[in-house]
């Protein structure tokens, strides 16, 4: 007998007490919990996102479509970055203000090559206000998962308010489970040494989130 059959057989014998007419899934789980916490107008939700991002030590910036290229160029310069990773579908104009060398997100790049790049700029799939989380889903404007992981500096652009949801339940509704997702709440952190929080053991040590208005059309 294969282990598959063995295990499934054991499971079925273990569940001899469960009757065939056991409550079906749809009725077995009460969903009396909230879809979002609190009553907010759109501006307040965006404000909450900014607060919670900052609370988790992400650096939050605000601008509009016209100011975006300038903001990104300024952040790259302030970080002293001379090279920047660019996902294939990133809007060209976002990087119009910087002369940092563009590095394409290519399959062939080795992790070592990625480690040499100073910064990465991406869009996101959505952001969650209540938890201060940005979610990437590997779309062309966000690139492969590893490009936001290996470089030490990540700039993520969130279009507000249309990419902002209030809560985790609202986020899951909008996300596609077949895509690989990365949920990011603040920069990499550890509390393993006497529970002192230290940023960046492995992921980027600096996370900058740019909230941009007027980009939804």
């Amino acid at each position, binding site marked *: 007998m294969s282990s598959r059959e063995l295990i499934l057989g054991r499971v079925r014998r273990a569940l001899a007490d469960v009757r065939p007419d056991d409550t079906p899934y749809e009725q077995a789980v009460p969903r009396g919990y909230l879809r979002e916490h609190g009553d907010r107008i759109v501006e307040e939700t965006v404000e909450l996102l900014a607060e919670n991002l900052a609370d988790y030590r992400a650096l939050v910036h605000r601008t509009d479509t016209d100011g975006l290229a300038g903001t990104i160029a300024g952040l790259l310069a302030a970080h002293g970055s001379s090279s920047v990773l660019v996902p294939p579908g990133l809007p060209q104009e976002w990087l119009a203000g910087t002369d940092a060398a563009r590095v394409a997100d290519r399959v062939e790049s080795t992790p070592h090559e990625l480690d040499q790049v100073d910064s990465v700029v991406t869009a996101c799939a959505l952001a969650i206000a209540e938890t201060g*989380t940005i979610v990437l889903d*590997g779309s062309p404007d966000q690139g492969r998962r590893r490009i936001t992981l290996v470089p030490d500096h990540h700039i993520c652009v969130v279009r507000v308010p249309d990419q902002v949801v209030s809560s985790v339940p609202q986020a899951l509704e909008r996300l596609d489970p077949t895509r690989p997702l990365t949920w990011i709440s603040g920069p990499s952190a550890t509390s*393993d040494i006497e529970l002192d929080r230290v940023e960046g*053991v492995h992921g980027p040590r600096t996370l900058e989130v740019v909230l941009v208005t007027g980009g939804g059309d």
Partner: protein
Amino acid sequence: MSGTFVGMPAFPKAAHEAVHNTTLRGNLRHATHTIRGKRAKAVTEVSDWAELREAGKRIKDHTLRHLDRYLVQLEESVTAAGGTVHWAADADEANRIVTYLVKATGESEVVKVKSMATQEIGLNEALEAEGIHAYETDLAELIVQLGKDRPSHILVPAIHRNRGEIRDIFAREMSEWGRPAPEGLTDTPAELAEAARLHLREKFLRAKVGVSGANFMVAETGTLVVVESEGNGRMCLTLPETLISVVGIEKIVPTWQDLEVFLQTLPRSSTAERMNPYTSTWTGTTDEDGPSTFHLVLIDNGRTDTLADEVGRQALRCIRCSACLNVCPVYERAGGHAYGSVYPGPIGAILSPQLRGTASEIDASLPYASSLCGACYEVCPVAIDIPEVLVHLRERVAQGGPATEKGNKVVLKPAKGHAAERAAMRAARWALSHPGALRTGQRLASRTRRLHPRTLPGPGKAWSASRDLPAVPAEPFRDWWQRTNGGRTNGGKQEGTK
């Protein structure tokens, strides 16, 4: 379940030693109290905590009650998404499968994300025996691995080590494993983290095979979820060409939507954060992004035996948040190592004796590693009634009875050395049903309290050998209550107390 700590003394002895290690107690106390306070705050932030907890409990219960169906569905969806599913009945089989899969890649190194399941089966040791080096990449696991040590907490495995000890371990051991620690390393957490970053980065960037566990598996979509803080998880899940995930069969949730419950309750219960820094989900393989080969190894290793016990089954709801450890007065004093398994604290006390059976001395002693204060049940985000299971397992140890071992129904004999407990149980039952005798006994104890020994004579000796007997109060509670009308008169003070 292999991975019993070799030569592990039974809980009372191990705990007795730990209790007298003042550094350990200091570290533990600081850590558990800090997390405990923060968690309470993170929980009050969400007004629907009770509803989320109930939903989490019901989702898991429903899944367990139909586990066969969900396992088959998961297998189908993972396969459809480009993964390969393997089934392992016990630790040996799981280790054999993983070893085979690693060897098939031609590699002799793997990077690992912290995973309870792989610790449970002793995977690192099994790989090492076959000439494959497994590198732990979580900072705390690295500390434990370099220190040739055992993890002592689910979430903060090196909780028993302070910064000075960590510095010494890094300075001494890192060069043995790869990039040495920087010259003149001090014990500031930032410097220690930087040393770990450099040491591990070298391994990540060349790794071809990653090994992980998973926090959740979604039957409907075949999606696996890993929740973490540092980014080492993301490294292991995305940089290697081959990813092997080793996961217990109980980690399933039926639908994608179910994650909305656990992604709210898990971070708040474990690290007391609104959300942990990183959560990764993957569904099979994705073209040109992340590993091109994905294997899922589903392990039983005692889980189906646990499932067969209608009272004990609820332990399989556990989402390994570790909240119960942080509130446990016994864990706080005894430390994680005393539990003799990778699952310490209250959850370890009910899970290990079910996964491994109660034949060994340590496993038979674990159901007694509790004061039954109930704090663990209160904080558990999936409402596992740990005290109920503890009492149930105590009865099994002391009196024997029906159980399931390796899928077969057996009738257990009472464990050796528990005759005193059998007698105590009978006595307790008698005393509790004869209130008069209970009252007399308590008063007698009060009046003679100066004469009480520090350990019990006769059959009670085994019990008290590892505990310092509590002082008997000057006045029995029952008398105090009557005399003061429940504290409403006489200021509630007891006469004769110091």
